[in-house]
C-alpha cells in the first residue's frame, strides 16, 4: 500500500472522472443559463439545486461498497418495479408530452422515476450477468438474463416511454457485451428487435383502425418514428421540431452566434430548448467549436469510466461500469443524434447538460457508483 497522501487520494478518487464531470457540469450550467434567457429567473437556480441534490447519491454510492448491491437483487427488483409502475398509479402520475413519466404526490411533481430506475436496473443486471462468469451462450441462460430486461421493458412501455425503453435496451446490450454474450446471440436478438419494431408499427396501425381510437403505441410515438424515416412528413408537427433543431445547429456554423444570441432558441423556434434540445442551443450559439468541445469532454468522461471498468477487481464492478458507460453513450448518441436528424425524436436528456434534476441526480449517482468501483479496486 502506498502511503503518500497523494497516493492515498488517488486510491479513492479517480481524478480524470471527477475533473471531466465538473467540466461538463460547468458547461451544462452555462448552456442552461443561456437557453433559459427570458424564462422565469428560477431556472438556473433549479439547475444548481439539482446538482447539489445529486451530490447526495454521489457521496452515498461512493461510500457504499458496490459489492453489497450484488446480494440485494430481490429488494432492488421490487424497487425497480415500484419506480416504473408508480406513475401509472392513479393520483401519482403526471402526464407530460403524452407519457405519464412523472411521479407526483398531492399535486407536487417530484421526479421522473424512470431516471433512478436506470441505475437500479444496472445493478440488477450486473448481478444477473455476473453469475455466468463471463460466458453466456446456453439458450436457457440467455432467456434468464433477458427476462430481467423484458420485465423492465414491459413496465417502462406502460408509461409509455419509448425513449427510456431504448436506454434500457442499450444498457442491457453493453452489459451483455462485457458479460460475455456470444456474438451470434447479438445478431439473433438484433434481428428479432428490428422485426418486432416494424411489426409493432404495422400492427398498431391496424389496431387503431379496428378500435377506431389511438390504442397501443400512441400516435405521436409512431409519428416520431415515421418522421425519422421521412422528416418532411409533418413540418408543423413532429417534423417541425427536427427541422427547427437542424436549422439551429446548422446555422451555428463554425463558431456560433454567441451565448444567448441564438435566434432559433431565443425566438422560441426551438422546442424544449433547455431540456431535450439543449444541444441545438449549444450548436447554434457555440457552433462546431462548441460541439467539438462537448464531444471531447464526453469522450474523456467515457474513457475515464472505461479505465475504472478495466481496473475493477471483479466482474460485477466491471459490469456496473459497462452499464453506466452504455447508458451515457446511448443517451449522448440518441439525444445529439435526434437534434441532427440521425435518430428518432425521443425525450431522452443529454447527460449533465439538459435541464432537469431527475436526470442530474441519477447521473451524479452513476458517478458515485463509478467512484465506488474505483476506490475498491484493490479489494479489502
Amino acid at each position, binding site marked *: 500500500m502506498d502511503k503518500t497522501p497523494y497516493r492515498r487520494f488517488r486510491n479513492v478518487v479517480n481524478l480524470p472522472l471527477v475533473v471531466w464531470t465538473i467540466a461538463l457540469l460547468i458547461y451544462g450550467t452555462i448552456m442552461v443559463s443561456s437557453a433559459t434567457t427570458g424564462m422565469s429567473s428560477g431556472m438556473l437556480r433549479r439547475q444548481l439545486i439539482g446538482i447539489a441534490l445529486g451530490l447526495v447519491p454521489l457521496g452515498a454510492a461512493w461510500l457504499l461498497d458496490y459489492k453489497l448491491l450484488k446480494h440485494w437483487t430481490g429488494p432492488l427488483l421490487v424497487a425497480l418495479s415500484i419506480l416504473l409502475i408508480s406513475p401509472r398509479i392513479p393520483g401519482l402520475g403526471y402526464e407530460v408530452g403524452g407519457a405519464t413519466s412523472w411521479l407526483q404526490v398531492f399535486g407536487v411533481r417530484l421526479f421522473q422515476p424512470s431516471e433512478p430506475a436506470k441505475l437500479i436496473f444496472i445493478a440488477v443486471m450486473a448481478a444477473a450477468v455476473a453469475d455466468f462468469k463471463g460466458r453466456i451462450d446456453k439458450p436457457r441462460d440467455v432467456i434468464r438474463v433477458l427476462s430481467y430486461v423484458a420485465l423492465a421493458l414491459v413496465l417502462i412501455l406502460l408509461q409509455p416511454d419509448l425513449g427510456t425503453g431504448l436506454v434500457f435496451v442499450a444498457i442491457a446490450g453493453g452489459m451483455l457485451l462485457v458479460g460475455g454474450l456470444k456474438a451470434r446471440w447479438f445478431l439473433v436478438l438484433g434481428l428479432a428487435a428490428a422485426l418486432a419494431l416494424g411489426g409493432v408499427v404495422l400492427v398498431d396501425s391496424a389496431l387503431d383502425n379496428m378500435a377506431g381510437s389511438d390504442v397501443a403505441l400512441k400516435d405521436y410515438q409512431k409519428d416520431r418514428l415515421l418522421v425519422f424515416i421521412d422528416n418532411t412528413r409533418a413540418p408543423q408537427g413532429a417534423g417541425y421540431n427536427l427541422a427547427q433543431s*437542424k*436549422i439551429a445547429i446548422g446555422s451555428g456554423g*463554425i463558431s456560433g452566434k454567441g451565448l444567448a444570441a441564438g435566434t432559433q432558441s431565443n425566438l*422560441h423556434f*426551438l422546442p424544449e430548448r433547455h431540456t431535450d434540445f439543449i444541444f441545438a442551443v449549444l450548436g447554434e450559439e457555440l457552433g*462546431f467549436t462548441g460541439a*467539438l468541445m462537448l464531444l471531447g469532454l464526453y469522450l474523456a468522461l*467515457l474513457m475515464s469510466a472505461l479505465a475504472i471498468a478495466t481496473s475493477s477487481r471483479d466482474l460485477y464492478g466491471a459490469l456496473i461500469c459497462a452499464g453506466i458507460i452504455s447508458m451515457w453513450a446511448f443517451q449522448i448518441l440518441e439525444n445529439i443524434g435526434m437534434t441532427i436528424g*440521425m435518430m428518432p425524436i425521443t425525450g431522452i436528456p443529454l447527460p449533465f447538460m439538459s435541464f432537469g434534476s431527475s436526470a442530474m441526480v441519477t447521473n451524479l449517482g452513476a458517478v458515485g457508483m463509478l467512484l465506488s468501483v474505483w476506490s475498491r479496486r484493490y479489494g479489502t
Partner: protein
Amino acid sequence: MSTYREDLKSRFAALGLVVIVMLAVLLVRLWTMQVLSGESYAAQAENNRVREISLDAPRGSIYDRNGVPLVVNRAALAVSVDPSEDTVRLLLIRSQNEDTDDDPTKREIEERFGALSELLGMTSSEVWAKVSDVRVEALRPRVVAVDVPIGIVSQLAERQTEFPGIEVDEIAVREYPQGQLAAHLLGYTGEISEEQLAGSDKNAGYEFGEIVGKTGVEAQYENVLQGDKGWRRIEVNASGKAQRVVNEQPPVPGRSVKLSIDIEVQRVAEKALADAITEAHRQDFPNAKAGAAVVLDVKTGEVIAMASAPTYDPSIFLGPISTVTWEKLTDKASEYPLNNRVIMAAYPPASTFKAVTGLAGLEYGVTYENKTYTCKGKWTEMGEQWPKWCWKHTGHGTISFRTGVAQSCDVVFYEIGYEFYKRKKEELQTMARSFGFGAKLGIDLSGEVKGRVPDAAWKSEFNADYPEYQMWLPGDTVNMAIGQGDLLASPLQMAAAYGAIGNGGTVMTPHVMLEILPGIGEDGKTYEPTVAAKADVSETSLAVMKRALVDVTTKGTALAVFRGFDVTVAGKTGTAQVAGKDDYAWFTAFAPASDPQYAVAVVVEEGGHGGSVAGPAARQILAQLFGLKVEQVHATDESR
C-alpha cells in the same frame, strides 16, 4: 480467472471502440451541417426569424384639365383579423396542414368569429374565408370588411376584450367626388385577378388582394398611379408574434394624373346624351338606350369629354361585388354599361361619312363645288334592276355638290361613289384611311376598335368560304360613299376625322392624359401632341367641304338644330341603317368654322334621325364649350 480477465479487456476495448465510432459519426455529421452547409442553414434561420410585410403605397389621384379632382383617396375604416393572434394562428395551422380531418369545424369557426361576423353583418364562414385565404402573405392582417360604419367600430373598441386579435385600421379607398361622371373614361379599380397577377411584371411586386386599375385611365396609367410599395422587416418569434422592426422602407405614393377632360363639358355631354335618348323616345324610337359623345381639341387631339351611355357607378367596385350586380353589368339586356362606346363601338357612320366621300371626290377630280346633279329620288345608274333611293323619295331635283352635302342628298353621293367604282383605284378607301379610318388612332385607353374600311381584298377574304360573295360590286362602293355597306367607324374616329377637316388635314392622336404630376423622387411628364394620320387632301378641297358643312347647320339638315346658335358650326347629320334595328342617329361637327377648336361626335343607337336626336345633343355640348346657354332644342329631320 486470468482467461476471463483477458476476455474482459478485449470486450472493454470493443465497448470503447463503439463509443469512439459513435462520437466520430456525430462529429462528422456536425461537420457537414455546421461547416459545410452552415450558410444554407443560416439563411433558413434568417428566413425563420424575419418576416417581410409590404406597405401599400397610396394610389395617385386623377384630376381634370383644370385641376378639379375626379378620383381621389378617402380614408376608410377596415376591420382586419391578426393572423398571429394565438387562437387564430392555431385555427390557421390546422386548416393549412395536410390533415384535412384536422380542419377547424364550422362550430369552432362560429365560436371564434361568430360575434365579430354578427357585428359586421356577415356570416362566420365569410369571415373565415377571408382570414384563411392562403394567398395572402402570412403576417399580413386579413382585411375582412372595408368601410365599416363608425358605430360598429366604436363597439369593437369598447368591447375590445371580447374581440381579441381584431384590428381596426384606416385604409385608403378610391373616392369619386364627381359621382358617376366620366366613369368609362376613369375606369374602376378592383382586386388584382389571378390572371393579371400571373401576367404582371415581377419587379412591380404585385400581390394577391392588391387593388389595381381594371379599366380606363385607372388601368392605362396603373404603373404611374400605383406607386412603389414599401416594406417592413419584422423579427418574429416561433409563434409568429412580432418582436421588433428590423428595418423598413416607406412606400412611395403613386403619382397623380391630370387629364385633358373638362369635367363641366363632360357633365353637359353626359346630360346631353341622356336628353337625346329621352328625345328619341319622344320621337317614337323606344329602343334608344345607348349612345356615345366625344369632344376633341382639333389642334392637339386632347379629349375634352367622353361620354358613353348607359353608364355605371365606379364606386360599386370598391367592395365585394355581388354576382347579381356583376351579371347585370355584363348583360346584353342592360346594353353592357361597362363598355366605353366612344372607343369600343364601331357603327356605320352613314351621312357623316359624306364629308370624307366628298373630299375624295373633290381631291381626285370626280366632283367640284358647283357641279350639278339631278336627283329624282330613285337612282338607277347601276341598272334598272338595282335601283337605289335618295332619303327624299320625291327627289331634290337639280342640285349642286355643295347643296348635296347640306341636304345630305344620297343621289349626289351615289354618283360620286359609282364614279369611284368605275375608276377602279379604290381612291375612296385611300382617302378614308388617310383620315384614320380602319385603324386604331392610338388613344391612351385600352379597348379601342379599328372599325373597318371595306375594299376588294377585304371582301374576298371576308367571304373566303362563300366564293359567290367575294367579288367587289358597284353597289359596295356606292353604299360606302353614303357611309353604309360594310364601312364601320367608332365615334372617336368620326370626331378625329372632323377635327382633321377643321385643322387643315391632320388627324391628331386622341389623348386623355395631359400631364403626369411629379412625385417623390420622380419627374412629371407633360403630353406632347402626336399625329396619328395625315389626310390626303388639299387646302382647296378642305375649304369647299368646310363651306358645305357650314351650310348644313345654316340652311341644311341641321338648320333647325343650330337656329340662333352664336358660333358657326360646320357639321353633318347622319342616320345609319342597321339591319334589324331602328336607325342610329349621328351628328359630327367642328367649331367655330372660321378657326376650328373642337370636334364633336354624337351617336344614339336606335335613336332615329341625326338632325333631330344627335344634333340637339351636339348643340348642348358646343354651347358649353363656347360659354353659350346650354339648352335642349327640338328639331325634326327626315334625312339620313
